[in-house]
Each structure stands twice: as structure tokens, then as C-alpha cells.
């Protein structure tokens, strides 16, 4: 098959294309189980295979995908035809940053193949957790498990040939129950990075049981809690909401295609301009953020992106100053040219597609915040006069240029004079991105840092769902409006 693909690439290049690549997915499989109140509501396996072809012709992209691989010439020809049509309206001819020709392979770290575990065993795992969560106060309980595996073979007209085998595991628990006013309260647990591999070994029954017990206990605290007050306070974000803050107001805001206006039709733009790199004080000096695709064991670490560029560890914000972005080959060339200076030294290796039938676009890798020197969670709480600890994402809404946001969380713990005084429900907070990050007043040490997995990041048209990670510590921000 690879030989046939290579022949097609050469054939299309001979017709005037300046670049061609193909991603052949011999296998892309997901297996999902959802148990809701003891009912196995969904036991679903999906399997797909096919090829996606990108052609660059006179500075314009054409793309075509098909699950039918018996006649590759049709797919390649259609991609060329689409590029020719697109070339009728070009304002900035696409150029691709230099990269090495690479022959390589990548396999995500997995000790026990989760697809090798019998369905009955997987169901039994969820069933036990369901039973554990069936306690007083819990009206709805859900346990879920999502497994993914992909084999992707990438070839391009520059001589690269890369094979990737990626296995992902996601799992979660959720309980909900009504408070005294009839409002539904929710508490959730999501499986995150545990150790250096992610396979069936991630589904540790004892660990999940502890989490089930914790979220049930916290739910029952919420059911009798007071409402979150509407006022200004310090907010202390635990990793269960800090990852989302990072995702929405650093990650998406620093995708270079958004900055350059390539997502304006749908997802939106970014308040960041090319002039801002090297100058903008994005956050306080306590903030250092990076796009680290080299982190061991995360969905945001995938070896090579879908441009064939190795993943990298790129600093985005250095002690508060904006210095980098999430980038692929096309956008760095365009950004440097538009800025009339070299902002980016080559691709950051972050161009990815969710499936063979989608085109690669800039996606987050692991967008991480470096641990700080403000101690443990307990240390931060003790140093807080009037605050609230927040955890769990219940809703999120962000301005179209990522300039402002509103998050609802699952649970809040009020802090007065360095002590936790009680739980509050319906806790929300909001802010404007740059002032908010500049109000960062404490960053927890390594003991507070954990890698949160994200399995459902949406972007692009046609829309693409991507998996990635966020390594984040506990952080405190001052003078934040809560309770709206």
C-alpha cells in the first residue's frame, strides 16, 4: 500500500503540485461503554479505515478523503482538482516551513492493551463502580470508559514516511442529586495521567473506588450547601478547573491559525496580534506556560504531527511575557512574512487531524503551566485571606477572541483568613483574559501539578474533536468576580 501511495504522490507532483501528503489509517477504532444508573446504556465499538490526501497547487490547498482505497488515483486526483479550484482565490500563497525528511515510528506508552480485555471484564469494572456510587443522595450515577487506538501511516512528497500507533484510554464517573431547592448538583471524576503508561493498567479498581467515594461525599456536601455569593475574591483553582482555564484562555488563544484569522468563520480569532510576541505581558511573572508535545504519556504527545514534524517543547509565555504559539508548517511561514520579522523558527509540530477524513490544523499538544514556588495547596490556602477554592468544570463560555470568559464549576470551598470554612454550590467565576492572568498571585509547587487529559476539544470546519493534555499546578488569582 505504501508503495502505491508513493506512486500516486509522485504522479500528482508531476502534474504541477508543489507538495503532496497522504495519511493512511489502516485502523482507527474506538470502544465506548456507558453505564447509567446500573443500565449499560451504551456498548459501542466503531471501526474505520481510509486515506486523506492533501495537495498544494499554486499556493492553495486541496483535500480529499475516502474510505475506499482500492482506487487511490481517484482520491489523489480529486484532491488536486480541489486545489486547482482553490487556486482561483489566493491572497497569500501557502508556503511550508522547512523540515527534515523523516523515516520514523512512534508508539504511545501502553503496558496492557485495553482492547485485549474481554468486554465482560470491562463491564464488570464499571458495574462495581456503579454499585459503589448507588448511595443516599445520589439520583443519577454514570460510569464510562472510552478506548481508542489508531494506526496512521504518513507519507509526503519530501520523502518522509512515519508510522504511528496510538492507544488512548479515558474513563469517568459522575454523580448528581438534588439540593434543597430542587437544583441538580453534580460531581465528576475523570481519569488523568497516572504513571508513564496508559493502557488497561490505568483502570485501577481501588483508585477508581476511592474517587467514587469522594465524589459521592462531595455531592452530599453540595446538596446542603449555601449558594456561592456574588462578590470579588481570590480564586484558588484546583487542576480539575485550572486545566480548562489554561485550555480556553492560553491554549486556544495561542493557536497561530486563530491569530492569523483562519478560524474566524466559526471558532473565532484571538486577541493576540503578531506584534504582541516578545512584548505582551500576558500574565504575572509567576506564569510560565509551554506547549510540550514531548511529555511522556499524554494524548498531547504523539511523536510526529500530521505535517511530519517531530513534537517539541515550546515555551509560550516566559515569566509572564508572550513568546510563542501553537504552530504548524504553513502558519509560521505566513506569520513571519506578515510580521516582517522572524517570530517563529520553524514549525512547533502541532498540526493534527482527528481522522483520515479531516485536514490537519493547529491543535494543542500538552499546554502546561510550570509548577511554582508557592508551596502546597495547604500553603496557598493558609496564605489567602479571603478566597474560594474551585474544582470541576460545569460550563465554560469564552469570547470569540478569547478575551473574556465565564466558567461554572462543580464545587467551591470558601476560605477565610487562611482556613477552609465550608462548601458552596453553583460557584461560578468570570474575567477578562489578560487582567486575569496578571492577577496570578500564587503558583503551587510540583506536589500540586498533575496532567489532565482532554478527550473532546472541538475546533475547525468540518469540526474536529481532538485529544490532548494539560499539566497544571494549583493557582491563585486575586480580585475575581464569583457567583454570577
Amino acid at each position, binding site marked *: 500500500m505504501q508503495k502505491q501511495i508513493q506512486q500516486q504522490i509522485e504522479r500528482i507532483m508531476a502534474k504541477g503540485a508543489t507538495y503532496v501528503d497522504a495519511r493512511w489509517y489502516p485502523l482507527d477504532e474506538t470502544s465506548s461503554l456507558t453505564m447509567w444508573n446500573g*443500565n449499560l446504556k451504551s456498548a*459501542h*465499538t*466503531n471501526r474505520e479505515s481510509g486515506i486523506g490526501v492533501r495537495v498544494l497547487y499554486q499556493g492553495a490547498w*486541496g483535500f*480529499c478523503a475516502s474510505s475506499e482505497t482500492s482506487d487511490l488515483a481517484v482520491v489523489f486526483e480529486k484532491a488536486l482538482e480541489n486545489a486547482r479550484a482553490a487556486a482561483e*482565490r489566493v491572497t497569500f500563497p501557502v508556503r511550508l516551513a522547512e523540515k527534515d525528511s523523516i523515516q520514523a515510528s512512534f508508539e504511545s506508552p501502553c503496558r496492557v492493551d485495553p482492547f485485549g480485555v474481554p468486554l465482560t471484564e470491562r*463491564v464488570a469494572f464499571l458495574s462495581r463502580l456503579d454499585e459503589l456510587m448507588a448511595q443516599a443522595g445520589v439520583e443519577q450515577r454514570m460510569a464510562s470508559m472510552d478506548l481508542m487506538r489508531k494506526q496512521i501511516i504518513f507519507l509526503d512528497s519530501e520523502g518522509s514516511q512515519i508510522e504511528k500507533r496510538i492507544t488512548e484510554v479515558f474513563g469517568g464517573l459522575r454523580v448528581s442529586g438534588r439540593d434543597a431547592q430542587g437544583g441538580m448538583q453534580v460531581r465528576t471524576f475523570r481519569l488523568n495521567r497516572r504513571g508513564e503508561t496508559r493502557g488497561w493498567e490505568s483502570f485501577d479498581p481501588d483508585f477508581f473506588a476511592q474517587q467514587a467515594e469522594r465524589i459521592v461525599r462531595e455531592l452530599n456536601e453540595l446538596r446542603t450547601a449555601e449558594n456561592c455569593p456574588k462578590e470579588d475574591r481570590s480564586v484558588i483553582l484546583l487542576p480539575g478547573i485550572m486545566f480548562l482555564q489554561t485550555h480556553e484562555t492560553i491554549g486556544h488563544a495561542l493557536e497561530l491559525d486563530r491569530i492569523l484569522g483562519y478560524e474566524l468563520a466559526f471558532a473565532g480569532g484571538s486577541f493576540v496580534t503578531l506584534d504582541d510576541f516578545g512584548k505582551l505581558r500576558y500574565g504575572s511573572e509567576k506564569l510560565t506556560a509551554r506547549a510540550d508535545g514531548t511529555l511522556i504519556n499524554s494524548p498531547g504527545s504523539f511523536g510526529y504531527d500530521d505535517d511530519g514534524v517531530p513534537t517539541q517543547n515550546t515555551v509560550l509565555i516566559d515569566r509572564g511575557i508572550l513568546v510563542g504559539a501553537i504552530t504548524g508548517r504553513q502558519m509560521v511561514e505566513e506569520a513571519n512574512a506578515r510580521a516582517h520579522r522572524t517570530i517563529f523558527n520553524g514549525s512547533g509540530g502541532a498540526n493534527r487531524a482527528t481522522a483520515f477524513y479531516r485536514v490537519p490544523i493547529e491543535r494543542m499538544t500538552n499546554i502546561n503551566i510550570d509548577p511554582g514556588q508557592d508551596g502546597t495547596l495547604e500553603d496557598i490556602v493558609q496564605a489567602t485571606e479571603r478566597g474560594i477554592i474551585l474544582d470541576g468544570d*460545569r460550563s465554560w*463560555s469564552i469570547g470569540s477572541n478569547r478575551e473574556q470568559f465565564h466558567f461554572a464549576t462543580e464545587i467551591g470551598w470558601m476560605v477565610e483568613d487562611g482556613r477552609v470554612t465550608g462548601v458552596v454550590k453553583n460557584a461560578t467565576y468570570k474575567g477578562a483574559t489578560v487582567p486575569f492572568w496578571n492577577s496570578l498571585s500564587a503558583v503551587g509547587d510540583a506536589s500540586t501539578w498533575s496532567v489532565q487529559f482532554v478527550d473532546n476539544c472541538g475546533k475547525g470546519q468540518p469540526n474536529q474533536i481532538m485529544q490532548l493534555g494539560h499539566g497544571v499546578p494549583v493557582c491563585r488569582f486575586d480580585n475575581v468576580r464569583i457567583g454570577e
Partner: protein
Amino acid sequence: MKDNILHLLQTLRAYAVEKGYLVSVIYHEEDSSLMRFANSAVSLNTNEHIIRLGVEAYDGRRRAEYSMITGLDDLDEMKRGIDLAVEMAHHAQPLGYDMTIPVFKQDFADESAFDPALAAMSSEERLAFFNQAVAGLEEEELLLSGIFSSGVNIWAQINTLSEHTQYFQTTDAQISVVLAHRQLKWEVTAEQSAQQKADLNPEALRRELAFLVRCYKEQPAMQLPLGTYDIVLGQAAVADLLSTMNWIGFSGGAYKRGFSFLSEEQVGQKVFSEQFTLVDDPNRRETFPFRFDFMGMERQPFPLVQKGVFQGFMWMQDDADEFGMKPTGHTVPARSLVMAGGDVPVATVEELARMPRERDVLYIPFLHYMNIVNPSQGVVTASSRFGALLLKRDGSIAVPYNVRLTQSLLDLFGERVAWVSSVTAPYNTSSSYGERNPTAVIVPMFMQVNGLEISHSNSSY
């Protein structure tokens, strides 16, 4: 094509029957094209032709599903998929209730929402449409973005309980045209939904864009003070709110699980404004409707709200089975929501701007990134986007920076509704997550709601 698909389904059914299986088979085929624009260029031009086969297998109270992307002639792989679904069901855990398996009592085929002319549109035609829609409007700093997404969508079904089949074929197009200022970062948009080629009207898009661009270029921009405003919501904003309401308001399953702001006690009660009437009407072709649901139940217009009075919940089959309710024909990939027009004959933004007014009115055409803050209270939050205007009482216009609304749907569609436009049109709410599945909501062009609070106001574009 239809005959080939139905023949395939009969072949798969025969295989399953011979093996003694109890299965349903769903065939989904999309032929999608998307031309995407950014920075005044075609940034992407794609085609995807994808065939998906879903198999749901039943074994007593056990069930499981296997789906695949496949080729029409790959019969062996499809049979393997059936075997795997049956194997999975065998190992699944029994449900705590009896489930209903679809029985199709007749053959049903609906191609009334399929237009060969729209299906055959070429890249060149899509590009010409866009060129016409922005003719004379682009400038060096005012750049074109947008999409022209169109395609053919086919659903077909069979199961082992009868030889009858259901077949649905539609064409659809979703067009968004955005003009955005590169430096200042303001952006305006005009959108269109089409079921047939004759629905396409680039000149209407151009007129709307021209008016908005003129406002944004010539009128002063301002940060709105926080506080309460009388707000006119545009078609996109109303459609987005209704889609959210469909999710956390009218679903019987969501209600039973505690995630609805409506309750059984409110059925027959006046909950919303008398000016609010909403029906799920599968007879409206512009909504890409399903006239039978996926359980084989014929769908009729289903009133949800009649002059503010809540009429009742929609019950999908599985929710109905679990909670002991009667299904209402809502086991469908998409509903056909139609909000009735009111009595104010205003069809365009230009007409809206010319309307006499006693107080300043904030026009919000589009709500960006709506999310549900509290489903029990129906509280949602979102930001304005794409061409908001402050229509001042003296007839002048200012351009506000974007603002955030955090409100209950009960307020947005409740007694604060001042007036509703008598002109309605389809608004395309399709999501391209995963697979093509066209949906549209028919909504009034404008709805004014008084006394809504703005909780955040940007200090720049």
C-alpha cells in the same frame, strides 16, 4: 443509488435472519463538500465521501452497537460487523427495563428534500457564489472568511423483525460569510441555509453585509456600561437559544434525570410569553425533516409551547422505555423546530434600524459559545458576536464592543418579550461533529426582549 442501498440492507438482513440474530441496521452515507475562506482566500477545499454502517444487536435485555466506515461493496466486512455486534450484546449487561425494538410496518422513502441541482454544485459555482456575496465589499484590511458547506445525506434502515425499510435522502447547504477587519478585529456576518439550489441568494447576503460594514466603518465604537438593556436578538441568536432549550427544556429523559428547567407540573401552565409558540413540525422541508422516526413511528406536528403554555415533553423511545412513558416519535437524529412569527413586519437589519423607538435598543445578531450554567434554572451564558449594534432612540447607530449575557431561558422567552418579527426563515444549526447531519430551525428574524442584564462588556473589539 437508492435501490443499491436497499438491496444491500436486504442482503444484510437475510444474513442476520439466517444466523438467528435480532439486529437493526442503519446505513448512513454522506457526500460532503466544504469550501472554506480565510483572509480573502480559499483556505481549504475538501470532499469527503463516507459510508457508515451501524448495527444494533439485541439479546433479551442486552444490547450493543457496532459501527464502521466502509465501502458499499464490502459486504464481508459488514457481515463481520453484524457478527461482532451480536457477540458484544451477548456479553453486555442486561438493562433494568424492557427495551422496544423497532418494527417497520411499511416501506417508507422520502426524497422530497433532495435537490439534484444542489447536489451537483461544483467548486467553481461555490466560489462564484461567494464572489457575488462580497462583491465590492472586500478591502485591504477588510477580509473575507466563511464557509460554503453542502452535501447529500442518506439514512436507510432495516431490521430482522420485518422486511420493510426506511430511506431518507436530503441535500443541504450551510453558508456563512464573514467580513473581518484585520487590525481592528471587528467582524460582521451574514448566513444562509438552503435545502435546494433555488434557496441560494448571494445578493441578500451582500445587502446585509453592506449595511453592517457601513455601520462598522462609519459609526462610533463604544464600550457599553454594565446594566440592563432592551435587546433585539437576531435570527441566529434565537435559533441557538431554541436549540439549547430543546436540550434542557423539552426532553422527557433530561427532565426525569433532573437536567431540565421544566417539569411535569408545568404542562398546561403558562410558563413563557404569550408571544412564544413553538412546534416540532416534520412537514417543513427547510428543516431537513424525518417524517418517520427511527422506530418506524409516523411523526406529526408536535406542539411544545402554545402562546406561552407548555404543552409537554418529547420522549425518545429509550427514555420512554426506561421511565415507563409513551414515545412521541422523537427517536430521530434531528428535530424540526418551528417558532411562530409575531406581528411586527420587520425582515432585515436595515428595516430594524429604521424602526421608531422610544429607548435605546441593543441588537445582538449572534451568540457566541453558548453554554449552560445551571440546567435546573435554565440559565445560559454567551457573548455577542458578529455585528452587534446599539440603535439609539434618536435614530442614530453606534457600534458596541461585545458583551456577555447570563440569563435564564425563562426570562429570555418569558414576560420580557416585547415583540416578535412576523417574518420567519430557516437558520441552519448543523454541526459537522463526526458526521453530516443537516438541521435547521425556523425562527423569526428578530425578537425583542426588554430588561436583560449585561454582565460583562469588552473594552475593545
